[in-house]
């Protein structure tokens, strides 16, 4: 029924000179997200976007609801600039909208229309009250607003506003490297950074044959589920060869520190890869105090290997909040598949919750740290996932 979708992107408007760049990124992301759905033109006007539908507004709106940077979407009816036609359209829109109180909001950039805004408001309000006996006017707190815009191209009518993800368009902030395990947390951390405009690439540490082919397939599946939020283009997933490091750590004489040491290796590899790939930050799924490697002491000692910024968007969330978000973004079902990952196969009996830096450095002195890191990076493979 609605030939148009009105797409609003509030936060971008604040961004001054960068506004055009941001808008271009958003439009690009929208185009690539809609590539496989029939749709018409995408037009930018007055700080919002109109999308022409092909009798499929609901499906298009649903897709738009998964794109960062969009605040809300409204399905829009269009009528000729003629009062009777506008009234008929208003009836259709109102019939399609739940609620028992309403008000009419008119905007009239096209001043040649014979009625001014208050007059048109009045005319449409009266028309609706006459035709819908269950409706009352409430100008302060209405259940819905019938918005009418009078422009040279015609009259645009809408009443529903579907909330979207908000945030900034993926890619508008810069590139970040997400440390992606097979667990619940890291995909959520990726999602939250994309929400602030980060374009992410994934990095998974693969320890075959300590873990199985299936655990890699699981990470690929998680990355595929994150990819649609990541904007235009392929989703890059790096698979780092971690087996030799695991072996070296298991042989070391500090079993309780093996997790701390492992995480330090991961950050070293991630930092080098990020530098090479021109990513500006690392992203992890750490949530303070959740496990031994996520105490403040651990994070402090682990962080010590890099001066690359590390985003930890889950730091203040509790497990249930993370799980809820993971369910709503569609990664939970995959995350709980029971395949081993390196964090489950190698957990020592008593992992240190308060590792000491001096001790960690002593343990690393026994290892060929640079050699192991270089080997892992050399053998890293790149998977390019398409939406």
């Amino acid at each position: 029924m609605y030939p148009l979708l009105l797409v609003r992107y509030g936060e971008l408007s604040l961004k001054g000179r960068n506004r055009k760049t941001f808008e271009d990124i958003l439009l690009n992301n929208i185009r690539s997200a809609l590539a496989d759905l029939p749709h018409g033109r995408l037009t930018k006007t007055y700080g919002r976007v109109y999308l022409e539908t092909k009798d499929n507004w609901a499906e298009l709106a649903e897709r738009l609801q998964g794109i960062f940077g969009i605040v809300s979407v409204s399905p829009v009816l269009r009528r000729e600039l003629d009062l009777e036609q506008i009234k008929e359209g208003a009836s259709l829109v109102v019939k399609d909208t739940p609620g028992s109180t309403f008000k009419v909001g008119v905007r009239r950039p096209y001043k040649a229309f014979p009625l001014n805004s208050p007059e048109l408001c009045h005319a449409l309000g009266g028309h609706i009250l006459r035709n819908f006996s269950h409706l009352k006017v409430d100008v302060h707190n209405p259940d819905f607003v019938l918005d009418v815009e009078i422009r040279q191209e015609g009259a645009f009518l809408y009443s529903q506003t579907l909330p979207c993800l908000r945030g900034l368009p993926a890619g508008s902030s810069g590139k970040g490297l997400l440390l992606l395990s097979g667990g619940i947390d890291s995909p959520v951390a990726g999602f939250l950074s994309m929400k602030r405009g980060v374009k992410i690439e994934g990095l998974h540490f693969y320890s075959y044959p300590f873990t199985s082919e299936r655990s890699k397939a699981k990470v690929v599946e998680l990355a595929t589920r994150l990819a649609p939020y990541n904007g235009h283009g392929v989703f890059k997933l790096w698979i780092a060869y971690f087996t030799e490091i695991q072996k070296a750590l298991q042989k070391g004489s500090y079993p309780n520190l093996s997790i701390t040491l492992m995480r330090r290796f991961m950050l070293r590899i991630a930092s080098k890869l990020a530098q090479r790939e021109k990513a500006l930050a690392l992203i992890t799924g750490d949530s303070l105090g959740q496990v031994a490697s996520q105490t403040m002491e651990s994070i402090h000692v682990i962080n010590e290997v890099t001066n690359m910024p590390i985003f930890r968007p889950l730091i203040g969330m509790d497990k249930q909040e993370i799980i809820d978000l993971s369910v709503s973004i569609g990664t939970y079902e995959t995350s709980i598949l029971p395949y081993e990952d390196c964090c489950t196969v190698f957990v020592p009996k008593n992992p240190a919750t308060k590792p000491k830096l001096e001790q960690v450095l002593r343990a690393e002195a026994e290892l060929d740290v640079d050699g192991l890191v270089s080997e892992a990076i050399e053998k890293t493979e790149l998977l390019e996932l398409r939406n």
Partner: protein
Amino acid sequence: MRNEIYLDNSATTPVAEEVLQAMEPYWRIQYGNPSSPHLRGVAAENTLNSNRKQLARLLQAEPEHLYFTASGTEANNIAILGAASSPFFRRNPGHIITTPIEHPSVLRVIDHLKELGWSASYLKVDRYGHVDAQEVASLLQPTTRIVSVMLVNNELGTIAPVREIGRLIDAANRERQHKIVFHVDAVQALGHVPISIPDLKAHLVSFSGHKIFGPKGIGLLYANRQAQLRPIMFGGDQERGLRPGTENIPAVVGLTKAAQLVLDSLAENVQQLEELRQALIEGIKTIPNSRINSPLHGAPHLLNASFPGVRGEVLVHFLEQKRIFVSMGAACSSKKKGASHVLEAVGLDQEDILSAIRFSLAPTLTLDQIQYVVYSLKETVEEIRNIYI
């Protein structure tokens, strides 16, 4: 294919060449539906009947007691739920006797019946999964309707004394108005131990095609009249209404051919398997701190062993790099540690469960291949033990 050594034949087997050939015409040439009135249908019906007769001969059963199903799991479900749905027991939830080491397609069905008000008793098992037939007598209750015991355990290879249990049930039934039905899951037994239906003294016996070099998607249920089976699925009259759905003729032909092949050469196969298994046992004994979990006199194709200090899943992945395919004794999930209900039931400790590996053999393997497996196993266990301190 050539250079891989597949020791997971209890999970599934490759389809034998002769089986594939036997099935071939039934996909595109003799593709008819046995229910159709025309000649195509009649031909398919004849194929169905002749295969049923041939299987009956092979198992020494009556053709009218054989029902084709879509899997061994389905056969188990129809057997137990069908016996539980007799007019009397549908209104009066009964009692079931089984073992704690049955396949999930038996145990979970019984769990389901328990939710409907049934009760269940589980026979005691020893360290190797052996049950005592006499214990069945002591567990019988006036409301006992079903006894279900698997002939060969799929994780350990333990053989159950089903004949004795069957006799005991026969005796008990003489004085009962509502008869006890005896179900035997013989999925892992077919082709590995001699099976003659009259000998089993069972009213219900389940089989599967893909464990005997036949196709997947086909199972077989023997059910005699005393079982008084009621259908649990509804539709057409196929399989005399017990298993509605158009018959899978190619798979029926494949199952028959596979059964014929494994039963015709049963004696040679068993001898070959025994030799292979013995060689594997000898070899594993040379690996320090290893344990054989299977009974000495079990099914000839199955051997379960533990290598403490080595996670089963890790060993599986190390061996697959050498193109040796084995399976874990326990489930792979780290989140459900020690999920093998069988190994837990026989009382293995956690370390032995987590490090358990199941080798399941096929007669096509050679002693040389087993020697190579033992060599690789020894090397790999040592390698992994050196990594994990």
